[in-house]
């Protein structure tokens, strides 16, 4: 399965990652999913409810997720995944990510440092572990 993230949407994620640094940023991926491809057509930034540990944790506002779902539905699309940043850490899922992950969604992780945003990587839960998916623009 391939994940398609257009350059303009990747740029939006990079901007939000920089804005939120050194805190985590998070949000929703909207698009279409087929058996062979997840095509991301829109990205939404949502609130991180974990204010106390915003540097290394995120908890997505469920009301924002509901709104993103409504927006997707109105466009004939779907919520296909979640994105979040890893400030000063690599774009690999942590144990915290794995423990709270849901099947079928793509988890896009954007690594960010003070002066640089790294290559995002896409993952999907398969059984008890994450499997990386090829990311294309």
């Amino acid at each position, binding site marked *: 399965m391939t994940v398609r993230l257009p350059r303009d949407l990747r740029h939006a994620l990079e901007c939000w990652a920089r804005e939120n640094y050194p805190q985590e940023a998070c949000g929703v991926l909207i698009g279409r999913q087929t058996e062979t491809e997840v095509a991301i057509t829109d990205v939404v930034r949502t609130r991180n409810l974990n204010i106390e540990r915003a540097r290394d*944790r995120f908890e997505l506002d469920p009301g924002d997720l509901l709104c993103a779902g409504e927006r997707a539905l109105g466009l004939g699309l779907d919520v296909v995944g979640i994105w979040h940043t890893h400030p000063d850490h690599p774009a690999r899922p942590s144990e915290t990510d794995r423990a709270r992950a849901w099947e079928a969604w793509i988890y896009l992780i954007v690594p960010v440092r003070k002066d640089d945003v790294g290559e995002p990587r896409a993952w999907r839960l398969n059984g008890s572990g994450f499997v990386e998916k090829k990311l294309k623009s």
Partner: protein
Amino acid sequence: MNTVTVRIPMPLRSYTLGADEVVVEAATVRQALEVLGARHEGILDRVLDPGGELRQFVNIFVGARNVQALDGLATPLAKGDVISIIPAVAGGHHECLRPMAR
């Protein structure tokens, strides 16, 4: 009983044969979920705990309102209501992950 729609998030559609919504007859949120569970085996275990209460990592909305701010699973339903099952999403980098090299 009222006819209401239950919206199913993508992570739970393996239980509904891919359906993104299911129409049920119910008077309360709990009834709606129980009808959903009777029709689609396994999905109720992902939403309710063994004690029949809402699992910690699942939110239920009626329209735009979280049932936690209403009467919980006893929240009454009106004809045409839309119930959304919203997964609780969380994570973050872990102390055990090695920081990126500078």
